[in-house]
C-alpha cells in the first residue's frame, strides 16, 4: 500500500519535471522565430520599462523583451559594447560616452520618454512657502536644523527621506544635496505613502515625493516652491513647470538606441511614446512628455 503510494508520487514528480522540460522547449522554439530584444539601464526606470514591456509583449505575442537594471551607466556601456539593444537612462549620455561611441562608429539616438519631477513637501500649517536649493541642501545634510533659519517658526526640522534603495533617494542626493550625505538623523521611510503620512502628522517635517503623489495626497501636505541658484523667483512644482524646465528638481528619462531604431526596437520606442505607452508612464508615477 505504502509502496504503491510512493511509486505514484514518484511518477507524478517525474511527470512534473518532464512537463517543465517540454514547456521550456516550446518557449525556445517560439523565441527562435520571434525577435528578441534586450533593454538595460537605469534602476529608477526598471519598473516603468517592465510595465511597457509587459504590455508590449501582450500586444505582440511572439516578441520577447528582456528588461534588466544595473544603473544608467551600465546601460549606456552596454549600448556601446553592443550587449543591449535599447538602453534606459535617467540622465543624458555624457561627452566621454559620446566619444567612446563615436570611436566605434556608433551614433546613440536619444528619446525622452517620460519626466520625473520631485516635490518637496512640508506640513500644511508650515508658514514657509519656498526654499532655495542651498537651503534644501543645508536641511537635508543636517546643517540647518531649525525652521527659524529659513524664515519659519522656532521649530526643529524633522527630515524624512525615502530608503537608500530608492532611485529618488539617489536623485535627490545628486541634484539637490550636491552629492553630500544625508544627515544621520533623517528618518528613512520604506514607501511614499508612509512618507506622506509622516509629513502630514508632524508640524516640523520636510520630505520629498514624486510629483504624481502630491496630487493624490491632497491637503494633507503642502508642496513648496524651489528657487534655483541665481534665480529670482521660486517655482512651484506642477506638470507645466516640470515640462518647461523651470522647476529645478526634475529630470527627463531617456531611451537610447544605436543609431536610428529599426524593427522591433523602433516599434517598442514608438509604443513607449504612444498614447497607451504614456498612459503607463502616468500610472508609474511619472509625467508624460506630451
Amino acid at each position, binding site marked *: 500500500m*505504502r509502496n504503491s503510494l510512493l511509486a505514484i508520487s514518484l511518477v507524478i514528480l517525474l511527470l512534473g519535471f518532464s512537463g517543465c522540460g517540454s514547456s521550456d522547449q516550446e518557449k525556445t522554439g517560439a523565441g527562435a522565430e520571434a525577435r528578441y530584444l534586450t533593454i538595460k539601464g537605469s534602476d529608477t526606470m526598471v519598473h516603468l520599462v517592465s510595465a511597457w514591456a509587459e504590455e508590449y509583449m501582450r500586444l505582440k505575442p511572439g516578441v520577447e523583451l528582456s528588461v534588466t537594471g544595473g544603473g544608467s551607466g551600465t546601460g549606456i556601456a552596454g549600448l556601446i559594447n553592443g550587449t543591449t539593444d535599447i538602453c534606459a537612462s535617467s540622465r543624458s549620455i555624457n561627452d566621454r560616452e559620446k566619444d567612446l561611441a563615436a570611436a566605434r562608429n556608433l551614433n546613440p539616438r536619444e528619446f525622452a520618454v517620460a519626466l520625473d519631477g520631485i516635490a518637496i513637501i512640508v506640513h500644511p500649517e508650515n508658514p514657509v512657502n519656498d526654499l532655495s536649493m542651498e537651503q534644501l541642501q543645508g536641511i537635508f545634510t543636517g546643517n540647518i536644523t531649525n525652521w527659524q533659519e529659513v524664515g519659519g517658526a522656532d521649530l526643529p526640522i524633522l527630515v524624512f527621506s525615502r530608503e537608500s534603495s530608492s532611485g529618488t*533617494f539617489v536623485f535627490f542626493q545628486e541634484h539637490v544635496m550636491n552629492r*553630500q550625505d544625508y544627515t544621520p538623523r533623517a*528618518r528613512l521611510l520604506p514607501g511614499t505613502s*508612509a512618507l506622506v*503620512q509622516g509629513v502630514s502628522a508632524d508640524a516640523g517635517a520636510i520630505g520629498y515625493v514624486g510629483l504624481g503623489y502630491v496630487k493624490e495626497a491632497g491637503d494633507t501636505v503642502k508642496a513648496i516652491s524651489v528657487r534655483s541658484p541665481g534665480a529670482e523667483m521660486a517655482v512651484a512644482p506642477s506638470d507645466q513647470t516640470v515640462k518647461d524646465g523651470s522647476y529645478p528638481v526634475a529630470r527627463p528619462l531617456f531611451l537610447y538606441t544605436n543609431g536610428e531604431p529599426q524593427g522591433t526596437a523602433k516599434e517598442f520606442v514608438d509604443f513607449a511614446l504612444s498614447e497607451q505607452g504614456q498612459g503607463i508612464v502616468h500610472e508609474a508615477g511619472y509625467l508624460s512628455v506630451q
Partner: protein
Amino acid sequence: MRMDKFMRMVLAGTASFSVLIVALIFLFLGKEAAPFAFDPGLGKLFGAQWIPVSFQEELFGIYPLLAGSSLVTLLAMLFSIPLSVVGAIYISEVAQPVEREFLKPFIEILASIPSVVLGFFGLVVLAPLVKNFFGLGSGLNALTAALLLALMALPTIITISEDALASVPRSFKQASLALGASELQTIFRVTVPAALPGIIAAIMLGIGRVIGETMAVLMVSGNSALITLYPLDSVRTMTATIAAEMGEVPFGGHHYQALFWVGIALLLITFVLNTLSRIVLKKYGMAQ
C-alpha cells in the same frame, strides 16, 4: 524487511531535513558575505556609521544597527514581560472557565494578525499617540516600535507561560493549600516557581520573536541609523535594514555583502539566545 529499512531512511531523511536547511542557510550566507572580508575588510563592519549609499564614502559600520535592535528589544521586553506573565497567571490560575473561554481566543487572534497590519496600526494610531503624549515632533521612534513589538510578543509569552503553569502537578497546589497557604501564596510561592523554567523559555521565545520582527519595525521606528539609548530617538534595526535595502542593492557589491554580514550577526544573536534558553531549561531539568 528491506522495505522497512527503506522507509526508515525516508523518515530519517525527512526528520533531518531541517538540519540540512540550516546548514545550507549558513553556507549560503557565508558564501555571499565572504568576499567582503577580503576587499574592504571586516574592520569596515566595526564602525559607528551606516551610510551604505553615498557619493562621498560608503560606510558599513553595524554598531548603529546593533544598538537599534538592542534598544527596541529591551524596551519591548520591559513592557511585555510583566504584562504577559501576570496575564498568564490570571488565565491559568485565577480565571473562571467562562473567562478563559473568552480570553484565550482573543489572545490567539492577536497572535495571528499579520505584522504589516500591526505596523500600519502603529503608523496611523500608535505613533500619533506617542507623539502627542510626549509632545514630540514625530512619533516614529524606538518607543513606538517597542510598544508595537511588545504587543506582538504578548501572545507568544502568554500562551507558553500558561502551558507551563497548567502543567504544574495538581498535587503541588493541593499540598500547599492543605498546609494552610492562601490561594495567592500558593500561586506565587509554589506554582510560579515550579513553572519558572517554562516561563523563562517563553520569554526567550518572545525575545526571538521581537528581535526577528521586521515589517512593523520598518514602518514605525523611523530607521535613522543612530547610536542612542534614548527611547524617543529614531533607530534602525538590523532586520529593517536588510528588508529595506536588499531589494534594490546592486547584486554582489560591497553593500550587498555587508547586508549578508548583518544577517550573519542576526543569526548569531538568535543562536546564542536559543542556546541560553536550552541551558536554562536543562538546568531546571525541563529539557526535552
